């Protein structure tokens, strides 16, 4: 597979979009300008970006509690997302969903999810629809390492295999589930060992390298689109901030050294080095991309802050399609 300059730049832009938006969201949360729980994706950008860059526009994804990253990497809109994080009526969910329920059906992003693992069965449903209607699309479920311990994941993975559905399972193994290190909650080293239990192939990917993720995804979805049934990728990655919010919490579940060590493998830096080394971009044009995107982020904050809150009458709207709630 040839990785064109275009692809390299595209991957980079996706990552920068996630990074700059999330850093901003983190700052806003720290200064109490965002309500609710915020699960940042910073550090893991290569995964969502690499996967989404390899997808067709209408291929579906389901996401997790850490959902901004996925939607932004798939092309999500800053304004609607920032407005949603602030609970404004102009947000992706009209302010009713917030960070944990971000979605964009036009981009075939079927929702973040506050329940660990619960998006995976929904992905199976989308994959089933793809197969039944023979639309050539595939469905991708993102989930964490911790999520592979829950029943919904297992049922969905087995169901996808049994029905031989066009579906890609993407495990974002950041080695922690909240504050629990992986080795405490599972007795295997690599999550990918689970793929075999369902009878489909899997591969381990460097989740700090967008190109590696892009390549692995492209290979996998070619097979999946060919009707070979589901596959799984385990992307080894790391989150730079805390499980929720930005700053560390009371417990020392991981050392500062560990975080520092992993930060050296920052997927953006890795990719920037590649861009520069291969002569695709120079430092200046990289900075230009960042500046431009930062401007968009800033504008989204302005947009969100100037947007109105939902009206109280909206409370009962959209509980049901066609008709009011009682």
């Amino acid at each position, binding site marked *: 597979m040839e990785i064109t300059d275009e692809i390299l730049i595209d991957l980079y832009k996706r990552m920068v979009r996630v990074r700059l938006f999330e850093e901003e969201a983190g700052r806003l949360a720290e200064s109490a300008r965002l309500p609710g729980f915020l699960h940042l994706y910073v550090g893991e950008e290569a995964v969502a970006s690499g996967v989404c860059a390899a997808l067709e526009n209408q291929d579906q994804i389901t996401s997790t509690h850490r959902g901004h990253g996925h939607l932004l990497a798939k092309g999500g809109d800053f304004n609607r997302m920032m407005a949603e994080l602030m609970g404004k009526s102009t947000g992706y969910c009209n302010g009713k969903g917030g960070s944990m329920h971000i979605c964009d059906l036009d981009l075939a992003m079927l929702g973040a999810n506050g329940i660990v693992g619960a998006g995976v069965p929904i992905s199976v449903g989308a994959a089933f629809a793809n197969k039944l209607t023979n639309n050539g699309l595939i469905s991708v479920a993102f989930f964490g390492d911790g999520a592979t311990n829950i029943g*919904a994941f297992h049922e969905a993975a087995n169901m996808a295999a049994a029905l031989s559905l066009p579906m890609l399972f993407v495990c974002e193994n950041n080695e922690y589930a909240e504050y629990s290190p992986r080795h405490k909650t599972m007795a295997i080293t690599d999550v990918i060992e689970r793929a075999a239990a369902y009878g489909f192939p899997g591969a381990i990917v460097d989740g700090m390298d967008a190109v590696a993720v892009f390549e692995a995804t492209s290979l996998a979805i070619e097979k999946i689109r060919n009707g070979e049934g589901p596959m799984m990728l385990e992307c080894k990655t790391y989150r730079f901030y805390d499980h929720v919010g930005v700053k560390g919490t009371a417990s020392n579940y991981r050392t500062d050294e560990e975080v520092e060590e992993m930060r050296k493998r920052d997927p953006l830096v890795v990719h920037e080095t590649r861009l520069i080394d291969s002569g695709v971009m120079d430092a200046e044009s990289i900075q230009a991309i960042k500046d431009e995107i930062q401007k968009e982020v800033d504008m989204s904050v302005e947009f969100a802050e100037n947007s109105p809150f939902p009206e109280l009458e909206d409370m009962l709207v959209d509980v049901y399609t066609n008709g009011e709630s009682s």
Partner: protein
Amino acid sequence: MSPDNIFEGANEVSDDEANSDERKLGYGAAVVETMAQIMREDESVFVAGEDVGAHGGVFGYFRGLQPEFGEDRVVDTPIAEQAIIGLGIGSAVQGLRPVVDLMFMDFICVAMDQIVNQAAKLKYMFGGGAKLPLTITTAGGAGLSAAAQHSQSLEAMLCHVPGLKVAMPSDAYEVKGLLTACVREDNPTVFIINKRKLADTCHVPEELFEIPLGEGHIVREGSDVTVVAIGRMVDEAKGAAEKLSDEGIDCELINPRTVQPLDIDLIVESVSKTGHLVIVHEAVRFGGIGAEIAAQIQEQAFDYLDAPIERVAAPFSPIPFSPVLEKQYIPDVERIVAGIKNLF
């Protein structure tokens, strides 16, 4: 007794019935017929669940669908209730009209997150963007000595969840009308099949028709007491009403047909006439749908009530296996009669 025996014969129309003018059909057979007709007219409808395909469902209410519509549209799944509901949600969001089956209603507990936290809330959480034309079929109710984990009536749990609609057909006619409405509905619905009713027949039109979700039905008009009966309890309440009419108590019998939405106006109207209300359901009394009906009626028809609202329902215990206990557990004509008489 195996579940299959219960259903035997329900697909065939008996001679007597066939000779009558009105076409009769079994309660279980009505599911099959309705599904077949809907699937013929709407390609986006499919059925999935455990043993719904080759076997036609353990109660047989999907029998014959797979031969006609193929394995792609009548799908046997692994034992994975969460993934079954997820299959429904994801495909519904993509524009299909899934009918997914949870064999026994007790199994909603196995899939409760997908039902309550996903299907019910998805549209709202997503700011309205999604439609969710998902129908969940499931067999509820006691009476087959199936014990504590295969006999429950858990509709109250579902009714408490904004975003769901819940239908409880009391006969084959309602099976057809409500199932059609559920499958055509753009919101997630739970369609509760009563497993003791499967072989019962009644008149059912050949053509598809809809009974609107949220419209109750006056089964029998009367002036002395309003009796609201849910699902199969309509049969028992009919028996009670007949018995009492001999004794000079004239019951107005209301079947809400759906418990979410609940046609409270119909009940209010009736109670303002009769001044008395008895609610009958198979579920445990504490926290059952009868509590909500009672609460709303005392609120909306306070001045009309001549006596406290009475509830006839299951006692506060798991469902016992032993037939002698189970018989006592489920409300029947006798207990309903006693409940009604309590008011006078």
